[in-house]
């Protein structure tokens, strides 16, 4: 039996939620470890902008002090974007997949969820937050390690990987957008101009790319170089380009390895996105309209997720389409004819082939 549509969807979201947890935790970690001790204090507002959650935040909190923001992002059960809720969602998906995933994977999902659910208040204090975030991150890495070692390399693996890569690209694009916007609108700390070393160092660290960048580029951190590294660098596992490349690989493998048809719209979407990234790479003025680029990337990623849904997760139950395949045992396909009735083939099969393709194109429209 092929992978169920529901299982594919659960694997996709399992990948997304683990990656979202890992990404968010890393940002919190960097924020708390590197952005303190500055004269103007820590700015937590940008985190709300990152996930577009200011409105939701102010429904339940008065101000963006560290205690409130940390609670909001780590273990606020009311906040669907909190680490707690992401891990809960990952666990819910894993539970639905338990017949497919290894016991070790399930155990680790539970461990990760329980750690955050049972966090003592003191673990969220600024002084302890770094330790807490590191532990959560390691839980996520363990999940990746176990999935890598134990998940079947069937179509399900590709959906899990697609979830992970698309979420990673999405996070990167958001992070870039918010960090650059802060500077352009002067919302960043003090007079932080494009040349503020700490700012760019933080951005690199927030996506685990500081040392990778340093290996490739020496000298002072140039904002444009940083942006280009985070978008285009193929050897950096979190660059947008890399994530899209991996996603394309997974989609291609669905067809080449798993015998799962890959509809044209999906391939078209990926190729459009790659084209756009390629064109942006050649644009010398990219840095000045980075927001436009990020906006377009976000739109493509959303459409890509929608396409995956339409192609694989929501199965069309149109009886007209189904009955063609539904009774293969009862009738030979029309194009298989006994050798001695060759004469009849042309007259009978051709019109019916036409009808078939017509009805199919109607359905796909």
């Amino acid at each position, binding site marked *: *039996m092929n992978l169920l*549509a529901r299982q594919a969807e659960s694997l996709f979201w399992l990948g997304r939620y683990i990656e979202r947890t890992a990404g968010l935790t890393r940002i919190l970690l960097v924020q708390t470890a590197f952005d303190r001790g500055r004269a103007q204090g820590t700015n937590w507002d940008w985190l709300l902008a990152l996930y577009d959650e200011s409105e939701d935040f102010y429904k339940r909190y008065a101000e963006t002090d560290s205690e409130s923001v940390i609670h909001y992002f780590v273990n606020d059960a009311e906040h669907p974007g909190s680490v707690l809720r992401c891990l809960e969602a990952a666990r819910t998906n894993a*539970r639905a997949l338990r*017949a497919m995933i290894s*016991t070790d994977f399930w*155990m680790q999902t539970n461990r990760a969820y329980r750690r955050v659910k049972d966090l003592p208040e003191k673990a969220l204090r600024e002084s302890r937050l770094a330790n807490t975030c590191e532990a959560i991150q390691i839980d996520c890495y363990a999940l990746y390690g176990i999935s890598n070692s134990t998940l079947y390399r069937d179509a399900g693996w590709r959906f899990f990987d697609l979830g992970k890569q698309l979420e990673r690209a999405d996070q990167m694009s958001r992070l870039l957008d918010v960090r650059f916007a802060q500077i352009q609108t002067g919302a960043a700390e003090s007079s932080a101009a494009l040349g503020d070393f700490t700012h760019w160092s933080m951005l690199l660290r927030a996506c685990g790319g500081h040392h990778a960048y340093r290996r490739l580029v020496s000298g002072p951190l140039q904002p444009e170089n940083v942006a280009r590294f985070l978008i285009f660098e193929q050897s950096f596992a979190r660059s947008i380009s890399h994530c899209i490349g991996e996603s394309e690989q997974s989609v291609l493998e669905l067809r080449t390895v798993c015998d799962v048809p890959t509809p044209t719209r999906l391939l078209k979407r990926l190729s459009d996105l790659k084209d756009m990234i390629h064109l942006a790479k050649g644009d010398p003025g990219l840095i000045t309209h980075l927001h436009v680029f990020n906006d377009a990337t976000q739109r493509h990623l959303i459409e890509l997720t929608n396409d995956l849904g339409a192609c694989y997760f929501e*199965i069309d*139950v149109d009886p007209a389409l189904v009955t063609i395949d539904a009774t293969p045992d009862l009738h030979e396909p029309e194009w298989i004819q006994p050798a001695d009735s060759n004469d009849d083939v042309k007259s009978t099969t051709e019109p019916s082939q036409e009808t078939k393709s017509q009805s199919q194109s109607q359905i796909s429209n």
Partner: protein
Amino acid sequence: MAQLSAFRDTSEPALLSNYRPGNSFCELMGDGVEDRPRLLEFWQRLEQLPFADLSVRAADALHDLYERGVTFTVYSDRDAIDRTLPFDAIPRVLTASEWDIIDLGVKQRVAALNLFLADIYGKQLILKDAVVPRDLVLGNANYRPEMQGFTPALGTYVHIAGIDLVRGANGEFYVLEDNARTPSGVSYVVENRHLMQRAFPDLLEGFNVRDVSDYGQKLREKLIETAPPGCDNPQLVLLSPGVFNSAYYEHIFLAREMGVTLVEGRDLVVVDKRLFAKTITGLQAVDVVYRRVDDDFLDPLAFNPDSLLGVPGIMECLRAGNVTIANAPGTGVADDKAVYAYMPQIIKYYLNEDPVLSNVETHICREADGLAYTLEHLEELVVKPVGESGGYGIVIGPMADKKQIEACRKAIMANPENFIAQPMIRLSVCPTLTDEGVAPRHVDLRPFAVTGKDTWVLPGGLTRVALRQGSIVVNSSQGGGTKDTWVLMEESPQTEKTAQKTQHQRQNGTPTA
């Protein structure tokens, strides 16, 4: 294999020195240990173990089950709480000859159940011959008129059966209840054995215990045999109500062991009386459904219209002969507690045989004699409501106070057809770990039988144990736990010798195979 992990400190009393089974039949001692040499050896093995060591390892083993997710799930408003079924480390042991009787008796029972179902949904000869009262069957809430005039492949209605057995003070087995709908618990049989192998290899070593780990493959084989005729390469799925079902772990377990896809109702769809699964490549035909969804929820078009767990139209597929549903809808009428009383006659009617396993004597309150007897002897009888399961609503006369007896009398008189009464069986006991040491606790046994072309019975079954002292209610919802159940291979002189050799080697400290 591991050796005894620790030898008993001789200053401590032996594990079993204070063990007194009283008037109950003891699964380990039997009528006297001399008559049962195989169990004598096990007894001696057990006596070597220090209690503290055994307790610690038992606790570790239970934690191990929890970590592995071998759990049933209880849901609160927000959270899913996974719980393990209490596991007792001291196994229940059955000899080869004991098992032969159970195996034969269960097969006979299942054969009769299937013939009975084919008849009552077909020609209804047994009703015409007035062997079983017509209204008891046709008026039963679990009788499904939708099944009339249609016979499933091979005439198999009950593909999976769990026959609950108890053992009386005389050591004889009785059938307490037939479970012909969607009996559960088989995952514990296999998991308990695996747990024993991991945690107590020294207890198992040297005994020729029959394997239980191929249950999934046997089940798959038998289910595939019952695929609709003419279907090659039948596709089998396991239909679960989903993650909110308390037996969800068992569904995962069975899907994995069979190597089939675990589906929910929303994954299936009916088109032109054919059943399909929604996969990433489109709709894929399904031929056999092992469903763990009750009749009521199976098809909103045929049964409960509010059900979201089922598949609209699946009954039409069944009636068109396009799909096999295991167990077939409508089997609940055969395991009804009142129909149970007629099982000896049902076996005789279809098979012309005497029952291998006896029924517990049952007084049917819907019948005048049975009602009169029940009301007269309430203090001695166990009264059971007909429609309930899970041990709910049972009144145990000898343990009830006056008030309870009178309430029970009122309930029976108001609705006699809802009740049956049985003499209280003094259930057999098995040595069991308790906080105070090893003590006798009452047990029952649920062997599992799977039926395709023929019937295969998993050697052993689920031993449930009433962990509360004196309690005879073994249901997990009422504080019951489980034990590993060992069926020993043939007791031939040869195996005796091997066992002695093993013991000899162990005492000399030489490694055994």
